[in-house]
């Protein structure tokens, strides 16, 4: 007979979280380096977004911190490794891990990318681009349906930043994304920095893109900084670096957008060359001011 002695352990799965999302305040990407400063300053933050893959270990510090964050803040679970835009079937083990995180932390928001990162046996750890045509549309919609079925919730799909285009494309990005939302019922994550990057890299009008975007499906906005380079011809080549403050041009697009739409949960992303918490919080405060104006001047036109 085994007489088992185990100390009682906190069971995270027993908890139920209430919805803490307040869209009047911008969110910030959560980084473990900022954990103490966040609590010391009792930061007023709309929500914290985490990359799902960073919490796919079984336990330890990452989950300890995320548990604490979750007790006080709304959470956005942002997948970067599902490869929804890829040719190969979704990794069902990875999808199961996402589902487990969704059940454990009950995030208010859940999103993934219109991109791919896995092929064959390998994972490439970047958001790679895809052509927009009937074949890829069908593939992406099947993958999103599968994600939403397994997760038991609606996902938000993020528009990409791209450096190349494909001759294999037969529709533009707006048509493609609009059709995905229509066919799958998914929501959209509108990354305004990505819009500005792609529009600059491919020489189209970012403002027009935002006017045409199916804004009624948008459940979250991303803002981030980008690096500036140029290609062989000397044409501008912006790179989605997430390593600095949000560019002025992106702030202007954002301000213009939310004046029309009203408040939408907005995130400041900063993943590389990590700043102090104060600097990141300052970026969120800039967004807060614009959100406050937007809520004064416009009623929220988005469907709930």
């Amino acid at each position, binding site marked *: 007979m085994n007489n088992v002695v185990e100390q009682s352990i906190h069971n995270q799965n027993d908890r139920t979280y209430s919805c803490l999302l307040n869209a009047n305040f911008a969110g910030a990407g959560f980084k473990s380096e900022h954990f103490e400063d966040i609590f010391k300053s009792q930061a007023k933050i709309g929500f914290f977004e985490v990359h799902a893959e960073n919490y796919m270990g079984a336990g330890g510090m990452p*989950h300890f911190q995320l548990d604490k964050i979750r007790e006080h803040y709304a959470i956005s679970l942002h997948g970067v490794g599902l490869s929804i835009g890829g040719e190969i079937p979704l*990794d069902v083990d990875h999808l199961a891990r996402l589902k487990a995180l969704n059940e454990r932390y009950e995030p208010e928001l859940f999103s993934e990318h219109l991109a791919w990162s896995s092929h064959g046996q390998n994972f*490439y750890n970047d958001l790679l681009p895809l052509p927009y045509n009937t074949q890829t549309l069908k593939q992406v919609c099947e993958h999103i349906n599968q994600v939403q079925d397994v997760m038991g919730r609606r996902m938000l799909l993020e528009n990409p930043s791209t*450096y190349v285009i494909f001759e*294999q494309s037969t529709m533009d990005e707006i048509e493609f994304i609009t059709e995905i939302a229509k066919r799958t019922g998914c929501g959209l994550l509108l990354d305004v920095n990505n819009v500005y990057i792609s529009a600059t*890299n491919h020489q189209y009008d970012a403002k027009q893109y935002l006017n045409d975007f199916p804004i009624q499906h948008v459940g979250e906005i991303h803002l981030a900084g980008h690096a500036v380079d140029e290609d*062989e*011809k000397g044409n501008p080549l912006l*790179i989605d670096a997430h390593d600095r403050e949000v560019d002025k041009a992106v702030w202007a697009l954002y301000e213009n957008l939310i004046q029309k739409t009203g408040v939408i949960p907005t995130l400041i992303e900063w993943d590389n060359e990590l700043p102090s918490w104060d600097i990141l919080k300052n970026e969120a405060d800039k967004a807060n001011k614009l959100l406050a104006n937007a809520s004064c001047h416009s009623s929220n036109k988005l469907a709930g």
Partner: protein
Amino acid sequence: MESLNSQFTSAISQSDLAVPIGVVDYQGDVSKKRFDVYRNNVIVSLLEALRQTYPAIEMLVGKDFFQALALTFIEKYKPTSPIMYLYGKEFSQYIHGFEPLDKYPYMADVALLEYNRVQSYHAEDAPVIAGENIAEFGTENFGDLRFEKHSAVYIERSVWPIVSILVANLGGGDMRDVNLEGMEDALIVRPECQVDVHSLQAGQVVFYQALFSGLTLNEAYYKTVNVVMDFDLEYSITMALTHGLFQKVYL
């Protein structure tokens, strides 16, 4: 014909390959520089993942050498999972066969220690068995107790002083103070979410591994003293309980 994703990943992995067919700039021209943004993103992110896992190796060989070493590794080994802390498992073995590092035979063992530190950091949470949990069984039963290894605990044997080398490089010490003649077995533990590394005395590895394999305290003790004359049982049990080596104790 290869699928677009196959062409794309091949061109990412081999810089001398042409940009995939149909991948162009907004004027319809092939742009190697634009495609290379993806290639660089992939390589830089994997390099960063290796730097995160192997800070002591980077200190030991220097930043530039580490980058060159890592790039040859990345060329050969891509992640097979989107969970990046699992990436680089083969690095220790790769270093072992990496000729320019032949003069530093301890390097591979230090790399394995670093990889296991990261695995410990992410290991499953479990209760830790302390002295009072043992006391509940009564002294008459001590010899028959069995233990289960805590999920965050790792033991690594080495003929090199791997713990001293790790501390010298990550703890602000000096490699010149490390006696490379000394052998050290390493114990990785994770009290309160922080990973610690300790060196073990003679016999402790045999003793702990015997307990982890399911032997009773008595059986493990006799197995150990059979091979190590000066084994300190009391010290070893105290160390096991203070560092949280077990997640379960049972009769």
